[in-house]
């Protein structure tokens, strides 16, 4: 475990509890996002990791070593730090800025120089920009430098405190892409504070949702979308986002009907007619003794045959379209709809019949996802939510084009 935070508590002298019993174990290479409304303690928690703040109680260990026993200056040099308002030194060139921590660590001039060139390349900025001053760069370019500066001394853990909060949406998107790529390529551990849910869900491997100093939910973006822990999380995510995310998180097994009407190959036409009548269906799925899907029979086939003792297997329609139970709806919905069938059998990995998906159920999901929330009349609970809703609405517009 690279970073371990146990029973963290931060109480200010005025009695305000900013963080209460925070626990988190972070593995190498994880991308953790702390998200919550303002005052939820997410920044406070992050700042305790590099001892910009000291916890009231609880322990933080990095590689098993208790950081409260470490020299804060040394600790900070080993942790990358990116802040919202960029924090480049305006009186230093880009190169000098990138070299700050390597220089503090006593790297040789040549090594620092090599590293600066490597870093500007990682930031996808031209090499000659090294000699410029921060004020000559755009906000997005500055924050690119801010990000690679935090990587310049080969730190294992990088803390990012709302790094893109001050950037316009287009610049923010390109920065998010940069950060995600760097994190994946370099295998560093990123800890990231944000109040932008899209950002958290898009970038993080695990999301820590905080409210009033407490952890509300800690899980992967998929699981959070699938099972929001409570109403607060639902509000924070936004109902529209939850609905829109459904095709990408729901599996076929979650919307299928169990116990589809089925019949065995050695049963007869009469059995088929009786079963259709009982179940009020016009199609029966044919399965063998192991419940493996063989095909289907439908009412049209039955009408053509006069002899009611004809075994099912003799007129089974073998060209059956089916889907896997664990596949995502988003991946299969197009195929299902294009087939133009009313019902699609669902099978497990051994092709055993487990359920059936009706066209109606599918269309409902697709329609909701396109439309967003059903005529949303819910008021945003906070400015943060308003923000998230605004973003979500904007995206909805894009996806429809």
């Amino acid at each position, binding site marked *: 475990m690279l970073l371990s935070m146990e029973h963290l508590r931060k109480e200010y002298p005025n009695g305000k509890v900013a963080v209460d019993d925070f626990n988190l174990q972070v593995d190498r290479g994880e991308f953790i996002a702390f998200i919550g409304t303002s005052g939820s303690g997410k920044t406070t928690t992050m700042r305790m990791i*590099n001892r*910009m703040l000291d916890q009231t109680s609880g322990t933080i260990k990095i590689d098993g070593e208790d950081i409260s026993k470490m020299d804060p*200056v*040394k*600790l*900070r*040099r*080993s942790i990358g*730090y990116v*802040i*919202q*308002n*960029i*924090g*480049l*030194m*305006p*009186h*230093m060139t880009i190169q000098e800025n990138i070299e*700050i*921590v390597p220089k*503090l660590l006593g790297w040789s001039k040549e090594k620092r120089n090599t590293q600066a060139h490597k870093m500007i390349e990682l930031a996808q900025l031209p090499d000659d920009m090294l000699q410029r*001053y*921060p*004020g*000559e760069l755009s906000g997005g370019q500055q924050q690119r430098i801010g990000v690679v500066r935090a990587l310049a001394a080969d730190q294992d853990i990088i*803390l990012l405190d709302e790094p893109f909060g001050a950037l316009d949406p287009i610049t923010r998107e390109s920065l998010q892409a940069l950060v995600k790529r760097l994190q994946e390529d370099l295998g560093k551990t990123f800890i990231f504070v944000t109040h932008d849910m899209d950002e958290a869900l898009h970038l993080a491997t695990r999301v820590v949702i905080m409210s009033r100093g407490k952890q509300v939910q800690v899980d992967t973006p998929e699981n959070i979308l699938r099972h929001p822990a409570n109403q607060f999380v639902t509000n924070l995510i936004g109902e529209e986002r939850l609905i829109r995310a459904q095709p990408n998180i729901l599996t076929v097994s979650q919307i299928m009907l169990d116990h589809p009407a089925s019949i065995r190959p050695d049963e007869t036409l009469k059995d088929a007619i009786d079963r259709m009548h009982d179940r009020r269906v016009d199609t029966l799925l044919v399965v063998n003794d192991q419940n493996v899907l063989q095909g289907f029979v439908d009412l049209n086939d039955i009408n053509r045959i006069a002899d009611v003792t004809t075994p099912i297997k003799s007129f089974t329609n073998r060209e059956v379209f089916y889907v896997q139970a664990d596949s995502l709806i988003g991946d299969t919905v197009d195929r299902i709809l294009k087939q133009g069938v009313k019902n699609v059998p669902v099978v497990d990995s051994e092709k055993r019949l487990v359920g059936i998906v009706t066209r109606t159920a599918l269309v409902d999901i697709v329609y909701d996802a396109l439309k967003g929330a059903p005529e949303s009349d819910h008021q945003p609970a906070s400015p943060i939510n308003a923000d998230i809703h605004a973003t979500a609405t904007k995206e909805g517009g894009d996806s429809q084009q």
Partner: protein
Amino acid sequence: MMHFFATYGTQLLSKTGQHLYISAAALLLGVIVAVPLGVLLTRMQHGANFIISLAGVLQTIPAMALLAMMIPIFGIGSTPAIVALFIYSLLPILRNTYLGMQGVSPTVKDAAEGMGMTWWQRMTQAEIPLAAPVIMAGIRLSATYVIAWATLASYIGAGGLGDFIFNGLNLYRSDLILGGSIPVILLALIVDYLLGKVEALVSPRQLR
């Protein structure tokens, strides 16, 4: 004009030298004391106002009175003059240093600390360089004050260009008064100009 230079030329040079020496010494002491003090003041919230007020009070003592007060302690000559002028130089430097340091963006301070700079490194590599233009403006202001007030130092036997002016006043000789005043004005202007150059030099390129 030529006659004045012929008669007083060498004297003018030595008096200018004395004047410059007294002013420079006072200013240098002022910088040595007030800049670090101003930097330290930013670390203590409560003491800062008190100390800046105290420097302000010292500033209000009439120059002549302050010079006279120095005589029992330091006798006469250039030493009491330098001490008195040093006291005068404190306030502008102290106040500007304090304000300059406070004006450094909190983001830069946060970044510097978060990257693992020690207090000393934060001061010398980040905060003082960024506050330098404001600090230098205070030093320039002090320099012109000190050069102007050094004229009075002649009263307690410190010499300097004030000698010409006071002699001129006593003898009703306007040429001596002008011969002392004009060099003082020129001196102040030149020093201010030179310090302005220094200010530009210490200013971060991006902030110029």
